[in-house]
């Protein structure tokens, strides 16, 4: 067996052992939902305060993704410009 295979096998065994150990319940598991239950209308108490959080979350995601795409596009453009410039200079040098 290669070293990598040995390591992977050891990791697998020990990971499995650790997981098996963790199945002993330690603390109590408190209330948590196991399903989302859809409803067609909001109960009246829930209408307003959540809206800023919701809008904020979506705006944040879209703005962050947009900024990142712009950042990559800018970097790609800068590199391509630099590559074109250098290639031009090298060709000019080769000619002279």
């Amino acid at each position, binding site marked *: 067996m290669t070293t990598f295979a040995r390591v992977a096998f*050891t990791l697998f065994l020990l990971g499995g052992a*650790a997981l098996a*150990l963790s199945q002993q319940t330690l603390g109590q598991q408190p209330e948590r939902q196991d399903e989302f239950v859809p409803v067609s209308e909001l109960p009246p108490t829930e209408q307003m305060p959540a809206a800023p959080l919701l809008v904020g979350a979506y705006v944040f995601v879209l703005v962050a993704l947009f900024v990142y795409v712009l950042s990559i596009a800018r970097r790609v453009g800068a590199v391509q410009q630099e590559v074109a410039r250098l290639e031009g200079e090298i060709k000019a040098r080769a000619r002279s």
Partner: protein
Amino acid sequence: MTPRFGAAVWRIVRKDWTVEARSREIAYTTLFFAVSCLLVFAFAIVREGKAPEGAGEGVLWATLTFAGTLALGRTFERERQNETLRALLLAPVPRAAVYVGKLVGVVSLLLALELILAPLVTLLFAAPLLSRPLWLLAILTTGTLGFAAVGTLFAAMLVRARSRDALLPVLLYPVVVPVLIAGVRGTSALVAPEFDVAIARFWLALLVAFDAVFVTLALWTFELVMSD
């Protein structure tokens, strides 16, 4: 492990112990840094002259993390300054022996530190850490081994990198989070008024699993990363 491997490891460990015994530089600086850490924590969390419940184990492991990082940095800085790391890697010993040798050196230093720190924390933060000394020793040993296994690898990797002093904690701390959690939770299980063996055994088992996986992984990675 062949006899040559064991002999190589022992030679490296003995070299580190000899150098350290003569100058005691790393031992003293790490010890005093750890005590200063304890002071900082004391002023941060002690209220009205009393430490909060359950503070002792947290303070102990946090101090060990910081002092351990310092010790790792200093150990490899010494190797870097004297170019001995390159000499070690060029020597006709298996690479893994170099890693294990340094690891044993770091673990022994940190264990010696813990022998002094645990009673100090017991005293200053009113935490009965020494009530079950064998369990405490087991958890401290396995936790220190896990921390040092990853730390020795990262510190060796960073020896020639820029900003190595700042980068070591940045890389090390997120990866040793499980050790920290298990160490603190295991120690707090020991000081609880009713000692629950099952909980202590769970955390100890997790630490042992972590040690096994990460020493193996570090041995493999050390070969690959230090081969230039």
